[in-house]
């Protein structure tokens, strides 16, 4: 067979949607960069401390030692604690909070949106009222009230962030469900009296997944920024190191020491950037509309 013929034959081969999406994702430069950065961050924060065993709460040297001095790569913070250790261990908590909050957000959002979009009628009305309620309140203020109520800890912070951020996921899910519900194969499933739960789980949800996956990815970034904001306002867990806590605690000293605030800020920035790029890449890969470039 000639080369041209072989090429032609390859073009005719039908790709599964998942493979096609993966291929699109891989060929997207910024998505790759995002994935690389994110992987690097995960590796550093979870594997790093196994190698670099300094306790982030231990006072290792004089407070506010500049980076590079006395062998402390990134310097020390306002108490004299090692910033490298703070970033490594802090990354674990920050990422954990981000992931946990994103999971809570998506879970609540999908549940509310799916039920509203599928059942329509009064269920939709009621759930939309609830959604509106949460949309109308400034998220940071509500989160502050919740965290203060239950005392700041990693759990309460993740919970509070999750509770105030789910509305966009809900709206998205609802829109998708409303759209897909009317499609032929769903109508077919309903006509054969498949149970509602089955239809929602097996038929609609997998097809609604693409934009939801994107939303989930992006909400990790939002949650991390949220945690930083709460820490800045003083609502952090004093017994757990996190990037937000480093920024919040070292903020009063910023005129004298730029590094304890800047390095965690950069860490947050890189993580959120990476997550956004991944989310963007997923969006481009999974969303057929934008494939025309």
């Amino acid at each position, binding site marked *: 067979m000639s080369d041209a013929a072989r090429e032609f034959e390859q073009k005719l081969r039908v790709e599964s949607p998942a493979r096609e999406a993966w291929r699109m994702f891989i060929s997207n430069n910024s998505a790759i960069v995002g994935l690389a950065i994110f992987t690097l961050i995960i590796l550093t924060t979870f594997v790093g401390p196994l190698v670099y065993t300094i*306790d982030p*709460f*231990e*006072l290792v040297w*004089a*407070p*506010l030692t500049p980076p590079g001095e006395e062998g402390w790569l990134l310097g020390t913070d*306002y*108490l*004299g604690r090692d910033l490298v250790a703070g970033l490594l261990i802090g990354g674990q908590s920050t990422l954990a909070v981000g992931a946990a909050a994103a999971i809570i957000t998506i879970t609540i959002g999908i549940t509310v949106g799916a039920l509203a979009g599928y059942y329509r009628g009064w269920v939709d009305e009621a759930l939309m009222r609830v959604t509106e309620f949460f949309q109308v309140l400034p998220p940071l203020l509500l989160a502050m009230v919740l*965290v*203060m109520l239950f*005392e*700041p*800890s990693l759990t309460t912070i993740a919970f509070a962030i999750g509770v105030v951020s789910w509305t966009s996921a809900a709206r998205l899910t609802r829109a998708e469900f409303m759209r897909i519900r009317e499609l032929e194969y769903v109508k077919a499933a309903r006509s054969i009296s498949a149970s509602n739960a089955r239809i929602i789980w097996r038929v609609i949800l997998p097809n609604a997944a693409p934009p939801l996956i994107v939303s989930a990815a992006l909400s990790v970034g939002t949650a991390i920024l949220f945690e930083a904001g709460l820490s800045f306002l*003083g*609502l*952090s*867990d*004093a*017994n757990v190191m996190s990037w937000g806590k480093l920024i919040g*605690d070292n*903020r*009063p*000293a*910023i*005129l*004298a*020491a730029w590094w304890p605030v800047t390095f965690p800020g950069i860490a947050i920035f890189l993580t959120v950037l990476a997550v956004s790029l991944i989310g963007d890449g997923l969006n481009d890969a999974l969303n057929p509309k934008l494939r025309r470039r």
Partner: protein
Amino acid sequence: MTSFSKIARATAAAALVLGMAWQAQAAEPKKGGTLTLLTSQVPRHFNPAVQSGTATGRPGTQIFATLLRFDEGWEPQPYLAESWSWSDDNLSMTVKLRAGARFHDGHPITSKDVRFSIETVKANHPFKTMFGAVESVETPDDLTAVIKLSQPHPALELAMSSALLPIIPEHIYAKLEEGQSAKNHPMNATPVGSGPFKFVEYKQGEYIVLERNDDYFLPGLPYLDRIVYKIVRDSSQRVITMEQGEADFYTEVESINIRRLEKADNLIVSDHGGEAIGPITWLAFNTKRAPFDNPKVRQAIAYAVDRNFIIKALQRGVSKAATGPIAPSSPFYSADVETYDIDLDKANALLDEAGLKPNGDGIRLAASIDYLPALPEQQKNIAEYLKPQLKKIGIDLTVRNAPDFPTWAKRVSGHDFDMTMDLVFNWGDPVIGVHRTYICDNIIKGVIWSNTQQYCNPKVDAALEMAGKEPDLAKRKALYAEFQKTVAQDLPIYWLDVVPYTHVHSKKLVNPPLGIWADMHPLDKVGFAE
């Protein structure tokens, strides 16, 4: 003149000499100008008679005049009172008011206003000991007030200065409508006093504007036309505001900023001023909760806390050590106490003796520590430092978060804590600010800054009671010395440092407010150089 102020002046001679030298240097300021001061606090209103604290006190001392004033030394000066005298038995003080002094609305000031003010403050001020000994105030004529005491009260003169006894207009505050009292009187927001400056405007949370009282009873004063208090919440922002010359005076407490401001060309950083305030940072124990009810455990922790490190490293050497309940700047301070300098071996030994043996991981005890959510360098930072430090003697410390004041206050006043950082003021005379922390009958659940440690030692109570009404200064000092020694032994509290209230002002300022009350004091003599 009571013996208190006589010896106070002697022991504070250094401060006075400094103050006098400072005054000799200063030329007379020019007339006019606007003074801008920075503050971090938002005042509720401006009547210090019913609301204590510096947020109200700063502008309050400009709007309201007091009977006496204490400038650079501990020597009382005439203010609204032209002269005063004591009876031989020290139970009666006669005050003669200046003639012709008027309130900002033109009404003359009479002795009836003095009586009314004392009664109002006595009824509304949280420090009951200030005027608790006052039985009655007689007003034989318009310009004479006779204050009758139930027992000798050496602290009375100090209590008649600064923000503690503003003379408020009876003709305004006696007119009360339904449900009104002096506490929530609408005039508190736009007050009428007799001080060097009149209230103009308060943009809530932003700025306060005062203007010159042309009718002020001290002729030729004040020099300034206007005073503006700018409310700036962020500490770094206050620093760059001063550096950029956008404000003329403020008080800094964070050592990191103090070091930076010392390098500014246009500013002078001064560590004297405010000696009467006596703010002490300390570590308090809940003495009714095991194992902190055992003095050995408290002492062990004290031996493990390196006060020197806190002051030199965490506070960059800017603060001074506090070794007991009375601040070092007070004439009653006694250094003859156990100071518990760092000694980890002794700490470990004491814990062994107390029966707290280490488990497999080396941990003897799990405990929690709270902290006042303000002034991180004095509170939170120290609590966080204690976490790894106390680990060295086997105490696993959890730092409890306090996102805001009511959360912390509720815990501590409800006696729901193991240990807590705290910050409490002396307020000049020990009777006013010190007694309340240590006496048995001030253990009141639900009231913050009462005896929240639940400490009770009848010996201490007796010493304090006698010291409070002892007119002879030497005897008074001895009683307070005994008190300090005993309390340092019992250690319901481990005192750490005196908060370094450092005053920063523009070089252009003449007669900056650096007296014992700092800027909680009339700014009538302050002005700008030519």
